[in-house]
């Protein structure tokens, strides 16, 4: 598969800033793929998106689209000449234009007839046909979202960019809009890069996820790989709960606050080990032991907060039924196969 | 309800404060008034100095409001018997006639000066001329000689085609000139004269009288109809280039063989309800005194109304002339007809 978008060793520093907003980031996005850029706020994901769009110059490296360099140290192809369209976080719908006019906006270079058929096509695709003459402020949040998407895909961009596309929607709506939008994008086959701070968004919509921290790319992979094999606790923590414990190697075992675990294959001296809550098995003859600190009812399950003797590195254990009380002792074990080790 | 009251009170209070800080100076009714209030259309520095001379001599303070004559007439009308004004001073007899017709003036009686010829004042004695200006033909010395000129009427002749520079018909001076022609002849003749002038214009009417002279200096137009006063100002300008323009034209007094050259009178009248009538009379007498008349003549280049006083040197150099002695009431009577004729013949 050929990469449509190539990000090659890109670095960027804002004027006056002390540290890099992007530091040597390289990612390839292949045709038809949906890539999510994820990370905590300030990690550089929006800067990367805006650099791809052509709104921010870069200081080092290259960005190319369809093998043509659009951003480099010396070159900054204007946004309008990149064949990239961006769906803004606040949607940026033109308030003085109807839905149809908004969609038609980027099509002005096409013949009239083609414009019309393209507009009809995206209106149908986004199920907005009956709202064509409405103004943005007359539509609901989900509808506005679809208008923004329709407007962006109408121009058949080489790359579609979306900045926090779901952040303005409430939880219920979000679930629906997410699957709608993924379906629409997949139907058109447009290569897409989206930015989201919400792991669930990325999980559901993206084919691959790139995680940034402090401007540095941490990992790019499918959701499954990232969930199961995060390269560091930061990445691991980003996609759901993870228990991280300080550990020391001793012979075939690692020592933690809660006891020791057999880890013959591992090859490290000291560092961190981590596992997902679902890897924990509670049973009376478990090797590991702690004290129940708190019990939180979460509806479908009960979460038990456990601490070790040093009262550090809390572990959250999920149980369907629990008879534990505060300050009870709790024994559990973790299968060595489920343990991740970080140096 | 309370808030309404407080709001209302605040408004009333603020209005009263603003007003009380700035009311006009009060003059006691009992004690002898030591001031006189004048509404004037004249904005000249010469007037200001003359008024200062008056205060110095008599100790009577002069309070002045300067504005357009018609605005002042409107103000006098609205103020009615409460008006503080004692005197109404204009640059054009027509406006005084208008004020008189609206009953805003009173007879001058004792204030009429014997030294001012009868044709420079209202026939019923409601106002008195102070200065006058002649509406003359100015010609470009380079291309026109005085012997080619004769009358206003002659300028309508096709031989002047494309050679006349003249200001707009909204000027009161052009209106009273046409009114004098209507009076001397009839409406039809006056209309064909106006049409003839329009046909002979070198350019669309624009600017004031001075601008006509400067246009001629630039070669636009060869003759113009202007007030002597403006030529005087130009010749005494602080800008040497303006003096040069003034020197490039000659002055010709038209209609000397017939009814005489048309003149405009700048005059003064006492208002109907003048609160300081005595002082007003004193001021009129002062303005017509030989001393002040000669001061006006030398500073504003107008002809003094007082026949005993000679005009300024610049003005005297143009020579003596015969004035059109038509009654000002007649001019005023024909004024609106004149304006209508101007509009009909397209004199802008």
């Amino acid at each position, binding site marked *: 598969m050929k990469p449509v978008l190539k990000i090659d060793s890109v670095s960027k520093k804002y004027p006056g800033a002390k540290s890099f907003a992007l530091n040597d980031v390289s990612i390839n996005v292949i045709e038809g793929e949906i890539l999510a850029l994820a990370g905590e706020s300030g990690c550089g994901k929006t800067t990367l998106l805006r650099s791809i769009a052509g709104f921010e110059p870069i200081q080092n490296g290259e960005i190319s689209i369809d093998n043509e360099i659009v951003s480099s140290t010396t070159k900054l192809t204007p946004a309008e000449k990149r064949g990239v369209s961006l769906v803004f976080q606040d949607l940026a719908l033109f308030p003085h234009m109807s839905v149809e006019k908004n969609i038609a906006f980027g099509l002005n270079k096409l013949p009239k007839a083609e414009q019309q058929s393209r507009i009809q096509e995206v209106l149908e695709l986004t199920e907005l046909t009956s709202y064509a003459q409405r103004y943005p402020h007359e539509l609901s949040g989900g509808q506005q979202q679809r208008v923004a998407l329709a407007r962006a895909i109408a121009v058949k961009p080489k790359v579609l960019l979306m900045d926090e596309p779901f952040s303005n929607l409430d939880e219920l709506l979000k679930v629906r809009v997410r699957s709608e939008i993924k379906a629409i994008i997949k139907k058109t086959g447009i290569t897409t890069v989206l930015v989201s701070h919400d792991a669930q968004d990325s999980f559901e919509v993206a084919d691959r996820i790139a995680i940034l921290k402090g401007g540095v790319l941490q990992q790019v992979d499918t959701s499954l790989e990232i969930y199961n094999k995060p390269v560091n606790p930061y990445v691991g923590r980003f996609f759901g709960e993870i228990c991280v414990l300080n550990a020391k190697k001793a012979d075939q075992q690692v020592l933690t606050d809660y006891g020791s675990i057999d880890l013959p294959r591992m090859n490290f001296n000291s560092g961190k080990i981590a596992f997902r809550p679902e890897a924990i098995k509670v049973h009376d003859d478990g090797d590991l032991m702690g004290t129940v600190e708190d019990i939180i009812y979460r509806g479908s399950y009960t979460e038990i907060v456990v601490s070790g003797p040093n009262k550090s590195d809390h572990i959250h254990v999920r149980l369907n039924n629990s008879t534990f009380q505060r300050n009870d002792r709790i024994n559990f074990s973790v299968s060595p196969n489920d343990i991740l080790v970080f140096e | 309800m309370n808030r309404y009251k407080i709001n209302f009170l605040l408004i009333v209070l603020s*209005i009263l404060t603003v007003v009380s800080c700035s009311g006009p100076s009060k003059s006691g009714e009992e004690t002898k008034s030591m001031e006189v209030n004048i509404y004037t259309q004249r904005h000249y520095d010469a007037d200001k100095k003359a008024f200062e001379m008056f205060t110095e001599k008599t100790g009577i303070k002069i309070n002045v409001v300067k504005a357009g004559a018609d605005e002042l007439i409107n103000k006098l009308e609205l103020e009615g018997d409460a008006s503080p004004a004692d005197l109404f001073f204009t640059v054009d007899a027509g406006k005084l006639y208008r004020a008189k017709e609206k009953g805003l003036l009173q007879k001058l009686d004792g204030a009429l000066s014997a030294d001012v010829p009868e044709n420079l004042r209202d026939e019923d004695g409601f106002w008195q001329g102070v200065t006058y200006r002649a509406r003359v033909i100015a010609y470009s010395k380079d291309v026109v000689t005085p012997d080619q000129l004769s009358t206003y009427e002659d300028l309508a002749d096709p031989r002047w085609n494309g050679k006349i520079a003249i200001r*707009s018909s909204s000027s009161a001076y052009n209106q009273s000139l046409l009114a004098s022609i209507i009076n001397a002849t009839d409406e039809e003749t006056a209309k064909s004269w106006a049409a003839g002038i329009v046909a002979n214009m070198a350019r669309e009417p624009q600017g004031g009288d001075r601008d006509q002279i400067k246009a001629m200096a630039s070669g636009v137009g060869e003759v113009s109809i202007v007030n002597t006063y403006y030529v005087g100002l130009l010749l005494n300008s602080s800008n040497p280039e303006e003096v040069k323009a003034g020197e490039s034209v000659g002055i010709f007094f038209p209609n000397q063989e017939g009814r005489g050259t048309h003149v405009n009178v700048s005059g003064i009248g006492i208002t109907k309800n003048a609160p300081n009538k005595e002082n007003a009379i004193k001021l009129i007498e002062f303005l017509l005194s030989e001393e002040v008349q000669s001061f006006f003549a030398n500073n504003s280049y107008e002809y003094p109304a007082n026949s005993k006083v000679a005009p300024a040197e610049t003005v005297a150099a143009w020579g003596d002339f015969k004035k059109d002695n038509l009654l000002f009431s007649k001019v005023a009577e024909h004024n609106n007809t004149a304006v209508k004729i101007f509009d009909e013949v397209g004199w802008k």
Partner: protein
Amino acid sequence: MKKFNVWSFHISWIVLVIGIPILIIFSELFKTPSDTWQHIYETLLADYVVNTIFLVLGVSILTLVFGVSSAWIIATTNLPFKRAFEWLLIIPIAIPSYINGIAYAGLLDYAGPIRTFLRSINSDNYYFDIANAWGVIFVMSSVLFPYVYITARSAFINQSGRLLEASRSLGSSSFRSFYKIALPIARPAIVSGLMLVIMEVLNDYGTVKYYGVTTFTTGIFRSWLSMGDLQSAVYLSSMLMGVVFLSIMIERLQRGKAKYESKSKTELNLRNDTGLKLWLKVGICLVPIILGFIIPLLQLLYWAFFSIEKIITSEFINFGINSFLLAGGAAVIIVSISVLLNYSTRIQQSKFWTGISKISILGYSVPGAVIAVGIMVIIIGIDRSLISWLENSFDIKIKLLITGSIGALLYAYLVRYFAVGFGPIEAGFKKIPLSLNQAASSLGSGPLKNLFKINLPLLKTSILSALILVFVDVMKELPLTLILRPFNFETLATIAFQYANDEMAPESAPASLLIILIGMIPVILLNRLMASDETSS
């Protein structure tokens, strides 16, 4: 229509106080016109109307070109000496149109510097004619464009930068993004600036008279001054007012359902242009400054050189102080009342009361001398009833108290220039989301506290621009000052006029220069405040 409450009470008294003189003029529209009107209708009206439309169109186009292009560049680009550009683009409004007209005519006439110079190197006698409709369009536009510039700049700065980026990411060039997105969204603001320009064109008499161009206003003064028929003059004025009111309404209707406020407010990224593009932009901003400020300024200085010794006396300082205090006082009064009126209609949230409040801005559309007639009817009327009341009830004899007072003059400015202060304040209130007030109310803050704690701080920029505009406008005001001033009271404008009216342009130059100089002080100071406010928000 909502029930009558304290806010509708405020709207009512403000509109009554400001509107009565306007309504007195307006009521003439329903009376039977006189013979003079018949004459004007038959012989002149067509010509007047055609000329007026031509001037309005011409000045509108030129002020839009000057004002919008410079505002766009200032709002979006980093220029060298940007601070100076910002106020230099405002300062031309300190020059009265008729003074600009006289300056340009003087520059090009026989005794002017250009032709004096040409004569000195070449005996040929050139002749330039600027005194025609094109000339009027030029001289008026070059000093009126800042009205458009000010409103357009603040509209551009307050626009969401995201909208322009969205447009560009959809493949539009920056020019197309400008005229398809930025311009239409700024339209209401630009139109409010343009409305002031149009009203200035309609009420101008000095420039058109000097340049010999006959307009509708010429008709008004022809019937009054030449024919002594004030009633016809007022009738014509009321027609003018009707046309302005209609066009305001039509513009509002024409906006239709489209909204111009965008909820997102993200900053525009300033462009860093270089080379030819940068110098082109600098040039575009320089042209209106040169035409509307530098050239007239130089001509006035040239004149002042001849007359300064003769004209400048110790009294000049007093004239300057008079002008400054009057303009400052009027600015504060007008802006305060504008804030109260706009805040009242905002709380009232009723189309009826908003419509009523618009009556208050009509005083700007007719010539000052005519609005003075309506104002004098009120002032002198109150004065005379005060006299008779005091005399009958208390046997106290007084003279006219309000007439000829500074208070009367300030009231007249309020009636005439209310529109100038109202526009920026109205636009400023529109930018504040209603939810802010509602949030404050839900936190237990009353409407007055809301006004002072929430709205006024957010309105700072709008209040400052309203203050500048009113200040500068009152500085150059003439007809109202002439007729309503107290005895022996002069301002710089009356002094400048006194000489200009008597065809003594050089003598009028020092006062005109001082008007510009005093006008510059608040423009520079307030522009600095505005600039820091704009960048910080």
